């Protein structure tokens, strides 16, 4: 008997059961509930695709949140990856205290989103107050506040992945490039970046999904103010579900659409960047 089969019960089964209870079953139930009207999961009645129609036609909240989220995701994906990569490049050089710096940059990632949101709300309100503004005064403050917050939280984590990628770039190729007289930028774009493509794939995937799914930071920092103009998809779903009587099904339908969007974007990105990965 193959070892894989023999150890299946002890190594895979517990995880599989946990995964089913915590993910697969709720997911299937959620899918079903998006086609029903319900208060609790027990008293659902089937209504067809009515919820999906309401999600788009009742008001423009969902579409607004979608555009805001896409804008946010675009900016934060670029800034996070660029900054994280630059930091990783700096911290893989032989500078004194790189370990200390790596730790410091990684630390914000250990703090929960809600806490970070409130901390940054205090900071941003404190900065804006002398000018007679609060973070709710204009949606642009909220937007850039969210970008700063997300960058602050994610850069350290993404940086660690890039560092791992950079340290595994084969030194013989780098030395060969140096001997051939390649400049710093040629080396960076022709050798370093193609060699860390697997890391880039992972980092892009993480930043895309995290930017789309962002919830607690959004709730704590602005909660959508002013007038829901800084509301992201996850928050809109939450508010639809809990904020209106009889809208649980619509919230559920929005969540399913949300899942499809995130899955489609993330999968496309995976396929695209995988192609660029080089075999070593």
């Amino acid at each position, binding site marked *: *008997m193959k070892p894989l089969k*023999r*150890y299946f*019960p*002890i190594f895979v*089964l*517990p995880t599989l*059961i946990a995964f089913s209870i915590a993910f697969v079953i709720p997911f299937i139930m959620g899918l079903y509930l998006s086609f029903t009207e319900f*208060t*609790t*999961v*027990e*008293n659902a009645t089937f209504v067809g695709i009515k919820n999906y129609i309401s999600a788009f036609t*009742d*008001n423009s909240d969902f579409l607004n949140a979608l555009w805001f989220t896409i804008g946010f995701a675009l900016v934060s994906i670029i800034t996070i990856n660029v900054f994280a990569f630059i930091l990783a490049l700096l911290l893989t050089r032989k500078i004194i205290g790189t370990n200390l710096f790596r730790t410091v940059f990684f630390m914000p990632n250990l703090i929960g989103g809600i806490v970070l949101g409130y901390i940054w*709300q205090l900071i941003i*309100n404190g900065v804006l*107050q002398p000018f*007679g*503004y*609060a*973070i*709710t*005064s204009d949606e642009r403050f909220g937007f850039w506040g969210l970008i700063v917050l997300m960058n602050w939280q994610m850069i350290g984590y993404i940086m660690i992945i890039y560092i791992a990628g950079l340290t595994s770039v084969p030194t013989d190729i780098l030395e060969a490039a140096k001997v051939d007289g390649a400049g710093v930028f040629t080396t960076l774009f022709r050798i370093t970046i193609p060699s860390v493509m697997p890391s880039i794939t992972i980092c892009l995937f993480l930043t895309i999904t995290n930017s789309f799914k962002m919830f607690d930071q959004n709730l704590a920092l*602005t*909660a*959508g*103010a*002013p*007038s*829901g103009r800084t509301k992201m998809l996850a928050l809109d779903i939450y*508010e639809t579900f*809990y*904020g*209106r*009587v*009889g*809208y649980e099904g619509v919230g559920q339908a929005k969540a399913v659409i949300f899942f499809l969007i995130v899955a489609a974007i993330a999968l496309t990105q995976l396929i695209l960047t995988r192609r660029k990965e080089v075999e070593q």
Partner: protein
Amino acid sequence: MKTKFTAFLLAAALIFSCFSLAGCTSKKNAALVYFLNFKPESAAVYEELADKYEAETGVKVKVVTAAANTYEQTLKSEIAKSNPPTIFQVNGPIGYDNWDDYCLNIKDSKLYSYLTDKSLAIHDDGGVYAIPYVVEGYGIIYNNAIMKRYFALPDKKTSFTDMSEIKNFRDLKAVVEDMTAHKKALAIEGVFASTSLSAGEDWRWQTHLLNVPIYYEISQKHKEGDPTLALLDADEITLKYSENYRKIFDLYLNNSITPKNLLGSKSVADSMAEFALGKVAMVQNGNWSWSQISGVKGNTVTAEDIKMLPIYTDIDGEESQGVCVGTENYLAINKNATAEQQKASLAFLEWLFSSDIGKKYVTEKLGFITPFNTFSENETPSDPLAREITRYMKDENLKIIPWVFNAFPGEAFKKATGDALLDYAQGKKEWDKVKDDIVKAWKSERD
């Protein structure tokens, strides 16, 4: 083969232990009465009450408290479990609409017979499904010490000498604006505490303040019958008294301790602290905020100086208007619980609101003004705000404004209103647009 067997056994043991552990704990907690509490501030008192009740009757009462603002979420998940709450709370007719599948008809219960005013309960098709257990009130709370300082000013522009002379919006406005002019002499930083408009902190304006103009609108349209029920059926509102709503809101904004643009960063706790520290003279809030005022460190307001004024909005005949009194705390019994559990749950509530120990806890520790006839005259809470509410309720010359906001169309409507008010305060929206937003939000939520 042997290894495979061991592996299976291990896995089975692992899984089984999880289940048996869960089974074990749930058995231990199998209490007859499970009360899902709405008020986090009273959590400890209810735990104590449960112990007292168990000691007295031997019936175990399980009390679970939902964190602030998460009652609906908690109830939604708790009620789908195998040991659901037997007593839960709905927040009025709208809340009942959502939970009617779970509410037991308690028309024949003793608890219902205790109600002084039977119309307060939630009726549906001849049955009684939820019973209020606490009456609360709100208005403009003021610090009489500061007011006395103002009335003693030699160069004040108004001729009033006592707060009892303030009977309408015009007088209130004259006094407030003159006080703002004399801020330095009065040693205050503003007349009104911050009009807190940050997310989740705007209910004093989008719900409580809006209650006044909406009440006048609906009670004029339907002269007979219960205004809350009439409002529940209203598919549309016109916000006829929108100018009155604006007048009082402007008064709050223009005489506030905080510049308008910064109100989006303020919370209710901020404004209660400003009041407690004597930085401002007035704040709109209800009797529940007493614990917040008395709990602020270094507070300078004494209990005798805390009084309440009705919310005047420049409506004709408002001289005879009182504060806003009502309830959004209704208890319901879970229809799907076993008959034994339902009986025990009602018994517990009846004990709570009619036995001597229960009543003592209710008035002294929970500080509730109850709508039950089992409580005598002297069994009312002693905090200054509760006393003010009781005073207004007893004054026969004044007309109480009921809480018609129980019939507002739900959170989404309130949120839209709050958003519009924030935009208005920040100068991003004209009042006409605010009025429009409120009217539209009502219509779309009622569709």
